[in-house]
């Protein structure tokens, strides 16, 4: 039972690292980045390619993951999403085009990775040696500890940054009212690049850490994670850091429960069920605010 909890915690932490960035850009600059999953996968894939050549320690691998994720995310923002935003006649149209464009963009790195690996799982070789400790009969590895700590530290840092820093405040202001905040001096385009970079970096970090934890992932694993993260974000409430934290861990607990109590193939259905239940009964999520609209 306690062992399952450790599993759920590390699973939830991966969801959290992944979903944090997704929620950040969706809640502030209104972009639902469908390529987020493939950024996660491709960062791990690049780390895998490099690890084929030289054996690196954990810190460097993590840095590579973050860098690749951030670069991809910023690249997609500059080359695809920003042009769409500039050209679309209204935001509603832009939103949909961005989702479609994201689906298109996402197939490119996926196809590259699938071609190189022949769709087989790939793992990262590293000089980092993950130990397994046993505390009160519960086994936990160094990687799992790192994942959990990273998730907690990064969400806390993000929450504080969004509340305290000038850029964080400007980002949140854009999320509430983009027009007014740009009139008041927030540079939407530059902040958007920053947010996307941050979001991609988190996805890259999650990719490398999960690959190290599981030993190997498949190129397609980003797709499934995308739906899961969407469920976590929806459950917690778009744009709320606390919401993503609660959503990610809650989802991981439910999935672990299903995994333990059924044959396991139904796990993928959990996110789907959550998405529907939340959208039907509490569309703003657990920690989101109902929109107040005045005409």
């Amino acid at each position, binding site marked *: 039972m306690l062992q399952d909890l450790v599993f759920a915690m590390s699973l939830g932490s991966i969801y959290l690292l992944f979903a944090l960035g997704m929620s950040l850009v969706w809640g502030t600059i209104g972009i639902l980045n469908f390529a987020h999953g493939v950024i996660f996968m491709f960062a791990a894939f690049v780390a895998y390619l490099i690890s084929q050549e030289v054996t690196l320690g954990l810190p460097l691998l993590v840095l590579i993951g973050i860098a690749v994720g951030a670069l991809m995310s910023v690249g997609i923002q500059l080359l695809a999403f920003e042009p769409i935003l500039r050209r679309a006649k209204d935001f509603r149209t832009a939103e949909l085009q961005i989702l479609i464009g994201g689906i298109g963009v996402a197939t490119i790195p996926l196809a590259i990775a699938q071609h190189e690996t022949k769709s087989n799982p790939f793992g990262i070789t590293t000089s980092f040696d993950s130990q397994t400790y046993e505390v009160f009969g519960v086994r936990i590895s160094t990687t799992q500890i790192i994942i959990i700590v990273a998730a907690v530290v990064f969400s806390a840092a993000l929450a504080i940054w969004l509340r305290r820093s000038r850029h964080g405040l400007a980002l949140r202001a854009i999320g509430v009212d983009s027009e007014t905040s740009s009139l008041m001096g927030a540079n939407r385009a530059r902040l958007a690049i920053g947010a996307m970079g941050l979001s991609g970096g988190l996805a890259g970090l999650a990719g490398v850490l999960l690959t190290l934890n599981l030993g190997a992932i498949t190129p397609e694993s980003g797709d499934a994670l995308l739906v899961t993260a969407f469920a976590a974000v929806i459950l917690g409430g778009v744009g709320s850091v606390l919401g993503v934290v609660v959503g990610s861990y809650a989802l991981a607990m439910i999935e672990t429960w299903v995994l333990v109590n059924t044959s396991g193939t139904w796990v993928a259905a959990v996110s789907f069920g959550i998405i529907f239940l939340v959208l039907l009964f509490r569309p703003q999520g657990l920690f989101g605010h109902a929109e*107040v609209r005045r005409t």
Partner: protein
Amino acid sequence: MTSSAIVSTDAPPVLEVRDVKVHFGGVKAVDGISFDITPGRIFGILGPNGSGKSTLLAAFTRYVNLTDGTLRLAGQDYQRIRTADVARRGVARTFQTVRLLPGLTVRENIQLGADLSLNESARFATLRSSLRPRGAVSDAAVDHAVERTGLNGYEQLWPCELSSGLQRGVEIARAIATQPQLLLLDEPTAGMNHSERHEVSRLLRDLKGEGLTQLLVEHDVQMMLDTCDWLFAMNFGKLIAEGKPEDVVRQDQVRVAYLGKRWGQKNA
């Protein structure tokens, strides 16, 4: 009886508004409004931005739900009907910002309004109209609306080719084409120059001549003075004055609401 009875004829009111409240959370956008709209006249609602005028119109078209109060259309309670059925009960509206469909020609945009009557006339008329060859459609209601708004010659153009004044005209024409009992106009002259406003004012009075009851929301005072028979002044979701237009604009509280305390009082 409310004081609108002064202008009422023997005919029953088209729209009865009784103690209508619309609150969004803590925001009291409309907070206890009562009046009657009697047939064959032009009524105006005057008020600064954010005074609740547009929310009131949204309540009349069932786009927002009433927090409290009653609305009766031609004597019938009309709170339960769906937004889409409001038009079928004879209430048409125009929007504050021009809302024309960019992919349809001017005539097709106006036809959208006339399509409403298809529901009544024949069950398969809608389908029949889709089976007819393109361009062969002639519709009396559309022709009438085009002529009334002076859009002859513009019918085959795309909305983006028209000036903003003419686009407003199409908006009104579309509403007229539904052959309404009551026409709600949300700032129909916003962004227009003087001569265009004059045109619109004349058009509305002509329509009144044909017996069309209208409720006009505006903040152009001259337009209201020229056009309306009866004026309501609103601020903070409440009625602050009503009466003949020239009387209402003279009242202190209206001037204070509109011009701010200093201006309003200095002139008082």
